[in-house]
């Protein structure tokens, strides 16, 4: 099995200290987190972590089981890049004079779909969103003209096949698993555990 990018989506309670509990599952195994984002989810009071790592699938599956084992974690899913829609956001601060003087720069920004979010006499801040390669492409292109500052956000991702977490949550809220939950959902799809 080859290492590849996996996006782990974790539904959790909103609890202080949980970020650490999840982060140490990776650091204990000397696995680098490429990107980590926490945000609200489609359900009020349920939080959503989006974590990107480079690993083989077998390791990712085990990591997800360790994450799910945490008391405040509702569910963990992992997906390959093909199974998700994802975006990252980046901000670039460029000297205003460069834009004003060099037509090429203006064209470049246009090409990459950059949008000006702040315009000052001395600098302009542009924003792009997209996949890693596009964002990195624009940095490279801007570098010769003097990029003052650059920052990129963590990845946010939507699982293509997901039907949302509402139904699952009902199951979690019931005191005892209801009569309709006869099957162990994990065992049902042993090969695709933790994918919706």
């Amino acid at each position, binding site marked *: 099995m080859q290492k590849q990018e996996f996006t782990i989506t974790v539904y959790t*309670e909103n609890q202080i*200290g949980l970020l650490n509990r999840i982060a*140490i599952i990776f650091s204990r195994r000397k696995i680098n987190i490429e990107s980590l984002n926490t945000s609200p989810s489609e359900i009020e009071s349920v939080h959503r972590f989006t974590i990107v790592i480079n690993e083989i699938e077998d390791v990712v599956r*085990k990591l997800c089981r360790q994450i799910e084992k945490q008391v405040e974690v509702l569910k963990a899913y992992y997906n390959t890049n093909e199974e998700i829609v994802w975006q990252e956001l980046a901000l670039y601060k460029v000297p205003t004079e460069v834009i004003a003087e060099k037509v090429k720069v203006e064209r470049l920004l246009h090409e990459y779909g950059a949008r000006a979010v702040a315009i000052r006499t001395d600098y302009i801040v542009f924003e792009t969103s997209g996949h890693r390669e596009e964002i990195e492409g624009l940095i490279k292109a801007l570098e010769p003209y003097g990029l003052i500052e650059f920052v990129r956000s963590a990845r946010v991702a939507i699982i293509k096949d997901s039907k949302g977490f509402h139904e699952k949550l009902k199951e979690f809220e019931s005191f005892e*698993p209801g009569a309709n939950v006869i099957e162990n959902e994990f*065992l*049902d799809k042993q090969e695709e555990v933790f994918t919706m």
Partner: protein
Amino acid sequence: MSTLELTKEKAATSVSKTENISGSEAVLKAFVAENAVTIFGYPGGAIMPIYDALYDYQDQLHHILVRHEQGAIHAAQGFARASGKTGVVFATSGPGATNLVTGLADAMIDSTPLVCVTGQVFAHLLGTDAFQETDVINITTPVTKWNYQVTDATEIPSVLAKAFYIAKSGRPGPVLIDITKNAQIQKFDYKGYEPCTHIRSYRPKPIVRKKYVEEAAKLINAGEKPFVIFGQGVILGKAENEFKKFIEKSGIPAAWTIMGMSAIPTDHPLAVGMLGMHGNYGPNVLTNECDILIAIGMRFDDRVTGRLDKYAKQAKVIHLDIDPAEIDKNVKATVPVWGDCKETLPMLTELIQQKKHDSWLQRFRDFENEEEEQCIIPELNPTDEVLTMGEVIKLLNELTKAEAIIVTDVGQHQMVACRYAKYKESKSNITSGGLGTMGFALPAAIGAKFGAEHRTVVAIIGDGGFQMTLQELGTIMQKNLNVKIIILNNNFLGMVRQWQQLFNDKRYSFVDISSPDFVMLAKSYYVEGQRVSQREKLKDALATMLNHDGAYLLEVMVGKENNVFPMVPQGCSVSEIRLK
């Protein structure tokens, strides 16, 4: 009035009316309501309000003052393991809390239910490097099943209810609750204690799926050479009877991990011994020969499996475990049976055929005979003058009629004790399995005695391990506790020395350890004792120890350079186990 009745009365009265109480009192009310009445602890600045409240609760809560917080937590572990209940600990902030870390890690890896309450500095001082402030929550996160910091007293009843529920349910583990001093002092309207029975994000038991039980039964019924290996899951699940019925109907030979030991009597006709690095010959070799390997409540630790890529490759593996993360973690399961073995074993027993596997069982006995000749007889009936650890255990078996709780530390004596000790009752073997914590035995034996007051508790400890937590002799003295202590003294850190002999060309690097006069040391704590180094005096000495009314320390001088065999050398397959 019994504690239980008191508990009920207390619970009933507390629900009916609202009272204005302090956070500290709410902590104690929770302990009473959970019937967690034996507390091991040590006071200090940040937990003083709780200790002050405890002053008025001495009729309901039994607090044992230890000599070091590590002693408190190991005692709570011993209590939990002997009683099957949750062990509870009080410690103060800073050093008090950090001294719990080893015990938390030990309880985490050995799935021992604990609730530890630590004091913390005032909430407004958090993060200011205040006196005795440490970031206990973050220090203990990797070694707790759950932890939580309380800064407001109103949270205390529900947080403690959650703590007890999480510690005991599913796969048990340690929970730590850190309570800031202001929350301990704060008065609030107490509405009574309600035990926790459900947490939305927490599923203690996976739902059992019949299809996999059926598949497992089919495999077992078709198996020619099935082999059961079991761990502490059987004991934690209180499934000893269900387990016995399962092996007795299927006629399958069963071997235990160090943590599973005593779940069935050691003389059970289907018991074939211990697995692992210093386990028995047959179970190790035949793991690589069986056709169906049925693992029950065990986690395929590396000390059990040896080299993983040569482990049971020929076998179809059925894995019963309550923790989904254990399935496929180390050994890929052909059929995973997730769930509480108390539920899954009877389902499985119903579907399997009544069978006998006489010739297969005989294979184990044949290996046993070979092991007997090469390892066991020399250890238990030595011909030279020096005493062996094994003969001490053999005599102890005879004198206690295999009815004692044996608490062991870590090292050669632990392996010898676990190899040769005989058990009739479950929860009789208490040892630090996963973490291998030297210094565990003495405090754990104290806890075990409180957890099973009617039973004889014998701690077997090496000369090295005893010196790590010997301060708990003070606790034994103060509580006048009837704990029997055997120090097997070989004047070496024996297990490391054995490895250095076998794998490092006898380069004995810092394993030569000297000891104080243990008997005199015990006497200074008013604990009776004697030293024995002659075979003819050993049995009498053991009998004197067991018959003595109160604690007793027996130091047995054993061979300096004796080794524990058989042994699966690290990096070798279980079938490459060495007899010498």
